[in-house]
């Protein structure tokens, strides 16, 4: 039995020992939270297009579910073993992934956080992201300006991302409240506000199903809600379904963040009042360029003036422009949309 096992193992192992030489150019890795969310799909397309243009080979990895840290750790290890020059990372667990990022940087890889800053933000060599706080602030200002005097006694539902409070969710939530003129208490977490106008904080997992359930829960608390902040457009679409079910879809203001094509279409259809559009294609292509540059001469990408990351821009998309809040039309948003 033992001889049989060992024999079988040895014979086949030795035959496999002959290795082929590696063709080694510059290679990069893209690690996203999932590979099903259109945002990440678009990110991957942007990275692949740019990589082909620059003659870089790109490997893309993703977690099974949003929040899957284990898969991302394994992906980073693979990139190191593969001898990649750099990694573009959208972290699922911004604190837990840090030791693996340290390992990659020690091995001489450039690590750029895309979309979601790590905690601490300087754990990565650079961060290319939307200013999520600003994205939230814009929809907050727009909602307050649109309501006018009614903003003082608004009833607001906050549909957040996840109970683990990922940075991106906190920034958008707190940005929205700041823009609306509500005291955020501790700006590093949501849910600790005391303002009477906030009816509920519910989590959506960033999808339609979660958005609908969360909105139903909020309406159970107070059926008179008239402003709904949502973490992203799928969650907003879910919230709209819940409002339609009780016939309140036309007297509630829904605001969101993302600027994906279905979301912009929803702004056109009046499902969403306004959304802050971000630019994942740009994030990914800039990231690939930075890795190419780093592989060539070791230069690190620079941050946007006055911020600790490179801001890839954000624009408010709505056809109901509000005074004092800069915005672009739905037609312009459609030209720039993704997904």
């Amino acid at each position, binding site marked *: *039995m033992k001889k*049989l*096992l060992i024999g*079988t*193992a040895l014979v*086949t*192992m030795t*035959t*496999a*020992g*002959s*290795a*082929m*030489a*590696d063709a080694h150019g510059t290679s990069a890795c893209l690690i996203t939270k999932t*590979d099903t969310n259109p945002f990440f799909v678009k990110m991957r397309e942007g990275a692949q297009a740019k990589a082909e243009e620059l003659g870089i*080979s*790109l*490997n*893309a*990895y*993703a*977690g*099974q*579910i949003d*929040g*899957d*840290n*284990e*898969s991302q*750790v*394994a*992906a980073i*290890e*693979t990139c190191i*073993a*593969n*001898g990649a020059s750099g990694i573009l990372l959208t972290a699922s*667990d911004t*604190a*837990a992934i*840090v*030791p*693996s990022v340290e390992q990659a940087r020690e091995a001489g890889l450039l690590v750029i956080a895309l979309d979601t800053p790590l905690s601490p933000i300087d754990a990565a060599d650079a961060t290319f992201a939307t200013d999520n706080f600003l994205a939230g602030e814009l929809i907050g200002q727009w909602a307050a300006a649109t309501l006018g005097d009614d903003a003082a006694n608004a009833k607001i539902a906050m549909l957040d991302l996840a*109970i*683990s*409070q990922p940075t991106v969710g906190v920034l958008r939530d707190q940005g929205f409240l700041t823009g609306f003129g509500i005291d955020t208490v501790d700006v590093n977490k949501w849910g600790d506000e005391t303002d009477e106008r906030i009816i509920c904080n519910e989590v959506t997992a960033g999808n339609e199903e979660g958005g609908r359930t969360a909105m139903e829960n909020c309406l159970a608390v107070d059926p008179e809600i008239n402003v709904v902040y949502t973490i992203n457009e799928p969650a907003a679409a879910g919230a709209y379904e819940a409002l339609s079910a009780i016939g309140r879809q036309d007297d509630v203001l829904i605001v969101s963040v993302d600027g994906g094509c279905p979301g912009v279409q929803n702004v056109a259809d009046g499902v969403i009042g306004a959304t802050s559009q971000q630019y994942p294609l740009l994030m990914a292509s800039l990231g690939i360029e930075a890795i190419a540059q780093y592989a060539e001469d070791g230069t690190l990408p620079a941050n946007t003036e006055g911020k600790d990351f490179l801001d890839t821009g954000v624009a408010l998309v709505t056809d109901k422009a509000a005074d004092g809040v800069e915005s672009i039309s739905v037609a312009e948003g459609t030209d720039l949309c993704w997904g």
Partner: protein
Amino acid sequence: MADNGSYEEVVQTRTPEDVAHFDDEKHGIMGRIQHALHVNPALVPLIILVFAISLFGLLLGQRFFSASTLTLILQQVQIVGVLAAAQTLVILTAGIDLSVGAIAVLSSVIMGQFTFRYGVPPTISIGIGMAFGMGIGAISGYLVSRVKIPPFIVTLGVWQIVLAANYLYSRNETIRSSDIRENAAALQFLGNKIQIGGANFTYGVILMILLVVVLAYALRSTAWGRHVYAVGDDPEAAQLAGVNVHRTLMSVYMMTGLICAIAGWVMIGRFSSVSPSASTGVVGNIQSITAVVIGGISLFGGRGSIYGAFFGAMIVGVFEMGLRMAGADPQWTFLLIGMLIIAAVGADQWIRKVSA
């Protein structure tokens, strides 16, 4: 088994010299192979494992077929490997444990939080975490054995309870690796490495291998191990033959809980941080069942070797690493693993036809 002394004496004195074995009646090369596979249930997964390593070695060359990458695969499967060892024990008794991953995550959170929230010395926190895992196992065991609720139902409930308790208790806070490094290095002990050339063996990997070897010995060569098989094969017959079924089941579930807690400690070593939202809590059960099934262990109980489960975990790890290195879409990995599961059980059925 103390109260069955008379039974044991009778059994021991009457034991014939020749132990039961399968007769090799089939002839021809196919029959021989079938027989060899039937007698050694871990052989099929081992052959698949070696084949997979060879395949990716040929495809990817030195990047894959190097000491550092192959030992990296061991590091990547250490958590699932330990969980699969725990899962094997329960499945051998014809049960199934859906709570293994959740117990591992909660145990790791307890080890971390007791240290940082209550100032307990880390070594004692580790002990408390393990005791906790064992306690949860004891509850499951009691519900299965005494209350007679099917294991699937019991552990489905326990899984939800443990996972929710984990989120509630931890307030979903990740304990950062830098804090652990400075204040409680013992928690990360299993992350330390022994380097031999390009090979890196973390203590967690060594612990996993030791655990598998010790359990394999216990299952094969001790009375307790034979009782586990007997209970899985036919509990009534085992009871009649003098096996204390209740005590055997309790010991299996407690042992499983303890090993899951060990997996929690392994997790801290691997990830350096303590994260209550680790996906092992959600998918660890499926991953461990996958390893066990690919390892040729029968879900009907009473048949299979724990080495098989270890090879099963390795097979999944090799495929994941190889396909990742080749730059394949991750969905292909899941698709292949799914096919492997069905193929493994199909092969198992073919082998069982030996006596047909």
